[in-house]
């Protein structure tokens, strides 16, 4: 019945709907797009040509000048294999980083940011909690002090699945890493009216910031911490449910990786599996406001269909780059040791 109705609805819409193609009368000028991310050990710079919608990108584009300054001093940049520019000079909290990019026929883009202080995790605890779907890991991280009101954070959770097996009588281990995102228990979560701001995720890895990818970073504000403690669940029903909405970048375990479906004692390919366990490493970044606003807008821009209908306010792409697009935003991170979960 539901299927029948769900088929009828689009048919009805199709019957009465009519496509109205129209040309885009107003076109923005071409600009430089910049992503400059000073992180703990280095600064990554990505410079691209932002072609106006309706216009054409040049066949080959290369900026004529890229100047990175840290506290007013120009730093050297080297090109990486994946098309980034990189400066290996370490940074400290409070360092002022600015970037100026020039290219022929385009306005010179300029942006600046300040490296935020690195957060300090005093305590990280993982414990097992019962839920309707069985036991789920619950992780609590405690900062050395409650964050200030306008402090912004990014959270990444690295999950390592470790299998132990005997091969030719030798004890071996093998592991796979993937990223997961924080979730809430269904029975505790008012998911129907949940503030989707609690589930904002972007992809971040080594200076590369994307809306979607394999390294999900959850954006947090100071209000997510209760007296300096942020607590979240893993592998709960909510994780998978909300992942569908927020773009969980978790990757399935590759096919050649037999566990964790294998029971202890299973034999496969001459191996005798002894057991599997999981461990988690939490990375917490303090984000500059520019980085946070840009990342949040990047996430929101994936959901523009409702705003195109005129139903909700549109998702504007935040930028602090003068005469250009993109962001110059910093972050500073720390990570915990691997946290073991027993008896899962």
């Amino acid at each position, binding site marked *: *019945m*539901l299927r029948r*109705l769900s088929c009828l609805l689009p048919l009805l819409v199709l019957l*009465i*709907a*009519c*496509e*109205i*193609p*129209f*040309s*885009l*009368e*107003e076109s*923005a000028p071409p*600009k430089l*797009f910049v992503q400059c991310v000073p992180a703990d050990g280095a600064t990554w710079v990505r410079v*691209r*040509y*932002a*072609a*106006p*919608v309706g216009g054409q*990108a*040049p066949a080959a584009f290369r900026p004529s000048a890229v100047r990175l300054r840290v506290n007013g001093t120009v730093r050297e940049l080297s090109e990486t294999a994946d*098309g980034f520019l990189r400066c290996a000079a370490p940074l400290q909290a409070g360092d002022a980083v600015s970037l100026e990019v020039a290219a022929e026929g385009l306005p010179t883009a300029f942006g600046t940011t300040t490296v935020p202080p690195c957060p300090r995790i005093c305590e990280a605890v993982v414990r097992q909690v019962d839920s*309707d779907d069985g036991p789920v890991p619950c992780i609590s991280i405690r900062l050395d002090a409650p964050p200030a009101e306008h402090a912004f954070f990014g959270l990444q959770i690295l999950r390592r699945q470790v299998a132990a097996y005997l091969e030719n009588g030798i004890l071996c281990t093998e592991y796979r890493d993937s990223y997961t995102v924080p979730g809430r228990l*269904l*029975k*505790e979560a*008012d998911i129907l*009216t*949940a*503030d*989707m*701001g609690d*589930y904002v995720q972007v992809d971040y890895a080594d200076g590369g910031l994307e809306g979607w990818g394999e390294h999900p970073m959850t954006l947090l504000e100071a*209000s997510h911490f209760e007296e300096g403690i942020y607590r979240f669940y893993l592998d709960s029903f909510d994780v998978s449910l909300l992942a569908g909405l927020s773009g969980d970048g978790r990757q399935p375990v590759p096919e050649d990786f037999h566990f964790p479906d294998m029971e202890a004692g299973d034999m496969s390919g001459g191996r005798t599996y002894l057991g599997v366990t999981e461990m988690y490493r939490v990375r917490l970044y303090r984000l500059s406001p520019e980085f946070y606003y840009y990342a*949040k*807008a990047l*996430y*929101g*821009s994936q959901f*523009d*269909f*409702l*705003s*195109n*209908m*005129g*139903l*909700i*306010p*549109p*998702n*504007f*792409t935040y*930028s602090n780059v003068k005469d250009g*697009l*993109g962001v110059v935003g910093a972050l500073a991170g720390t990570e915990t040791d691997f946290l073991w979960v027993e008896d899962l």
Partner: protein
Amino acid sequence: MRTRRIRQGLRRFLCGGVLLAGFGLRASGAGDDVRTDTLEQATVTAVRERMRNTAQTGLIHLDNKKLTAGYAVFGSPDIIKTLQLLPGVAAGNELMSGLYVHGGDGNDNLFLLDGVPLYNISHFGGLFSSFNADLVEDLDFYKSGFPARYGGRLSSVVDVETREGDMEAYHGSFSVGLIDGRLQLEGPLCRGKTSFNVGLRRSWLDVVTTPLIAYANRREDTKVGGSYAMSDLNARLTHRFSPTNVLDFCFYWGDDYLKAGLDYPAEQGAPAGSGMHVGVRWGSLTASASHRVRYSRNLHSRTVLYYSQSHSRTAYDFDLVSDQTRLRMDDNDASHIRELGLKSDFDWYPDDSHHVRCGLSFQYHGYHSGRQFTSVTWQDGLQADRQEDGESADYRSCEPALYAEDEWFLRHNLTVSGGLRLALFAPGGRAWFSPEPRLACKWMPGRAVTLKCSYTLMSQFAHLVSATYMDLPSNSWMPATASARPMLSSQLAGGVYTIPFRHCTLNVEGWYKTMDHLLVYNGSNTFVPPITAWEKSFSEGRGRSYGMELEAGYDNGSVALTAYYTLSWSERNFDAVYAGWYLDRNDNRHKVNLLASWHFARFFTLFANWNYHTGNRITFPTHEIAEAGRSGWYVYDAPYNTKLPDYHRLDVGLDFLKTFPRGHSFKANLSVYNAYNHLNPALAFLEKDETGRFYGKAYGLVPIIPTLTFTYRF
């Protein structure tokens, strides 16, 4: 023939009397009765003169005849949709009850029903307005030059007055439209002293859909349910102690109810099936007692004690049942705004050259928004776990205000009006004081030409907290706070009002308006706005709007032609969104409305209305980032950067009115909305053709809608 001559003579006399009154040339020593009769009987016929002869700008007066005549979407005359046709007003999404006046946000209009503020002004998510046109006597729609007696909103005032019941005889009407029915009854309770007027509306969509859904479900294991109903009731009780001492009791109740559900069959061994249900109920309630006293021919007053409430309640439930366990989750959201108010207005004519208005008001507001979530788990029939969670926000505030204004007839062709409104808003522990000057001036250089200008400052202490542009039950009103300050607007308006030829009018008005402390939602994608600390999900900014309106009219009694043209700009500046000013989504550069009516062949009246406006604006990606091996990486640089195709449609209506003896009448109305079936864009997407060229693709959703309505009056 003789009677006709007498009527014509009386009409000329009455119009002349009003003209003299308008020029301030009141005959001293004229008897009270003569003057009262003159004004009361000639008010409607002399509206055009009244507009010309006061210093008021931006005022449009509509009487019941204008509001109920013509086409009616789905069979119900709609006040908001009538106002949407007027110059200086943008309608927003098609068929909705959006009212964006002079670049406003839609939630900054003051709606008064018999002097009582009404917060929820539509049914069915905006498809119908809350005002039952059957009972409406008239309305005043102010777009600029707001008199000092009005305050609390930025952009417009819609002052709706319901009709007193007939003091001598019983009357009524019954109407059946496409999706609703209306019943109206009036008459004396005590002949010549007390009367009532009651109107009831109800949609009957659920009457049709409920059996249809039951029929569709009859062979299905999974049952789908859903229904919607809206209803409202207006009542007015009037008692005349004397011709100069009148007491009114007014009541309004509006209710919307929507429910939907899905029930799965029970799995093997399970005691019941899983299911999910949602029920939403929202509406308004107002009640007032109004005392009108005419102390002398120079002084009269109106005191209103009222209560107004707007509320919504949403309930979801999920039931997940397996053979041994059951998880049930209930979510209840509720919000309301309640207002208790007392206001007194005085009109005083100290001499022939002054008209003084003054008054005071006191409002007590209660705001509430809350959510309650409950989750219960049963294992083998025994309760195993129970979780509860909830949050709520409650605010209380007082809003005293007083005002005074004087319309000073300096010379026979020069009038100056000056007023001041002082308002105080005090939500617990915090107070805002808002002095609001109101100035207006009128000069008549010739008999057929009037020049006017006005300046007003307005403040709004309540914000509509909404994550969407839609009129949803989840929207709630919240008071101004330290980080969401009261909104302010100042507007300068002026115009030329002429009567170039007999039966013709030609008016031109211009305005410049600025708005401060506007809010825009900056939270994550959700339909439900936050409850606690809601201000953090909103950014503050500014707005400005300017333009001109042109109105040309011709009316000879049987043929009426009206043309409205608006040239306007509406802009916003929110630093959190974009560095600089940008065009607002309802920036309709040009708007044209052509209205015509023709009364012919004794029984028939034909109406036509053509609407055109420059397309609304939406936000498309502005740039695509060029990166090898990757496409579709878009950047949204500027908000509302794309104009949708222009909007136009034609509505036509035909009234057939047959009058029977003893005053009974039958009216059939055929209305055709969007007569030439032009689908106007409702939503749009960015597309790329095979050559890589970008273009927009919009979809129209509202086709031609014919409606037949029957009304019987008795």
